[in-house]
């Protein structure tokens, strides 16, 4: 601002004088707002609410449980396991290890929504935005922390599921190394997809702001949209199906294919990323523009 206006009659000082004379030395020397700090803050926030712990615990249990069900259900129908090629054995193990991702995507979507709607519904968002008044750094930090933790939790769950699968299927003589390309790629890809779904849901939560509404929208897109499209007896519906976030996500690491001609996993990844970018981008625009 330019030259300060003088104060009301009877007050001799200019604003500038008062500013230098009386404002205590709070003006930034020493700690100030910074990216690492904002990320650390979001990590503290994520790790100190129960919903996070619950979501990851449920993810782990569901992944291991589904792997166990699938491994116990393995029916060789009299085939000698020695005649089954190693790659097929590995594919079965990979499917069992990542089967939890089907349900896991719903769990992490709820988590992604809660991370931000928990702030909107409690009013915490006002504390967040007064600490980070430019707003977007807080959103990016939330997305980053959520992405990394969900990826790690997803990876741990998938590896635990792998361990369960192998422990059970070994009884039938089935073997597959975790680091076989048929196994490790889906295990990593499944975790990556979970992390991206969480960030997608974070965007939805920021746009919708209410917890119940956001969960409805996020689960609608992930769960309901594919079902609805499959029920529509039109070719365009079948054509669109592979481009949904959940279809592309699960085909990305080879669980199920929705396209007649399977898409390359990089194409699937790009499809998922577009969903995430649109969601988070819209969230950023609205967070910046709206009153909190």
């Amino acid at each position: 601002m330019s030259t300060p206006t003088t104060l009301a009659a009877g007050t001799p000082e200019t604003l500038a004088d008062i500013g230098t004379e009386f404002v205590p030395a709070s003006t930034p020397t020493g700690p100030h707002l910074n990216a690492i700090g904002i990320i650390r803050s979001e990590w503290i926030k994520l790790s100190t609410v129960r919903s996070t712990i619950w979501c990851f615990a449920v993810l782990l249990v569901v992944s291991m449980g589904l792997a166990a069900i699938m491994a116990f259900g393995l029916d060789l129908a009299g085939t000698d396991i020695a005649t089954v090629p190693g790659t097929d054995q590995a594919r079965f193990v990979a499917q069992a290890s990542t089967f939890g991702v089907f349900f896991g995507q719903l769990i992490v979507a709820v988590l992604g929504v809660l991370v931000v709607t928990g702030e909107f519904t409690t009013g915490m968002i006002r504390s967040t935005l007064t600490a980070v008044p430019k707003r977007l750094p807080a959103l990016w930090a939330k997305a980053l922390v959520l992405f990394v933790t969900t990826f790690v939790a997803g990876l741990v769950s998938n590896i635990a599921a792998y361990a369960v699968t192998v422990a059970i299927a070994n009884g039938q003589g089935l073997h597959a190394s975790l680091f076989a390309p048929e196994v490790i790629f889906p295990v990593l890809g499944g975790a990556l997809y979970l992390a991206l779904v969480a960030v997608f849901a974070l965007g939805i939560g920021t746009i919708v702001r209410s917890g119940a509404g956001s969960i409805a929208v996020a689960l609608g897109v992930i769960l309901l949209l594919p079902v609805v499209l499959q029920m529509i007896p039109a070719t365009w519906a079948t054509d669109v199906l592979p481009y949904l976030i959940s279809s592309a996500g699960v085909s990305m690491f080879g669980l199920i294919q929705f396209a007649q001609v399977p898409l390359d996993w990089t194409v699937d990844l790009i499809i998922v990323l577009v969903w995430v970018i649109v969601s988070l981008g819209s969230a950023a625009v609205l967070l910046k523009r709206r009153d909190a």
Partner: protein
Amino acid sequence: MIQAQSLTKRYGSKVAVDAIDFTIQPGTVTGLLGPNGAGKTTTMRMIVGLDRPDSGTVLVNGQRYQDLRAPLREVGVLLDAKAIHTGRSARNHLLAMAATHNIPTSRVDDVIELTGLTSVARKRVGGFSLGMGQRLGIAAALLGDPGILILDEPVNGLDPEGVLWVRKLMRHLAGEGRTVLLSSHLMSEMALTADHIIMLGRGRVIADAPVSEIIGQAGGATVRVRSPQATRLATLLAQAGVTVVNLEQDVLQISGITAAEIGDQAAAAGVALHELTSLTASLEDAYMSLTKNEVEYRTGGTGDDEFGDDDSDTTDAAADAAANDDPRETELQEAAR
């Protein structure tokens, strides 16, 4: 230092804050008063960038709040006690806030102790009473040791001890040269805490003056005198600028002359006094008279909106109305003569 220039906020067609200007000085406690819906909270929210002004600007230390390098260390804000995630403990909430600015953990523990939250710091905020929530909100505001404090209804829900604590704290912080802006509905509390008052009505500034001046506008100081010779005393004191009101048979309420002068004159004339008490008009009286038009406007229906809208003289009109408000006054002034 907070400066607003033609600051305006609309919600739909409703103008919440209507082109207001003000400057809030360091070293003082400034009270923001006004009826519900006058724009107090909206103004505070605009100062810290939660609401975007439709036009005009508000600067803290010469900068927009959004542009501050260390917002928490320049401005501490309590907008409502429930701006805190209910599922997190008080200490973790403060740690998360502190982390953004690399404020050390020792400072978090300091503000917890300062606000008397030590015993509940590790409990989840959801179980907090309103008063504890307020204390936590104040702790968060103090976290960055800021030069400016903005507190919306800080004593809301506090027990008497807490109210006293907030009052002393605000006075202390202003005494250190900090800028303190607070709003409250408790007039008596505001009169004790604030040095300066900005009164809002329907989104406009209807008064911006030191507390004493605001109270002065509402009629100033009066003296209550009890005397068996009240009528004689009334005659004795009758002079220009002195108003005598006969409250009861032997009780007078006198304004325009100090208690000492009344005592002296009574002694000189040999009039016995049984009571001589200085009374100060309350901030509440001033508030009522200043906001009279604003309140009438909103409860009086739709008939005379046009009249109420052209209110460049609102303050004067309200003060005049207040001056002629007491019918006994004129009546008894006559009696006294």
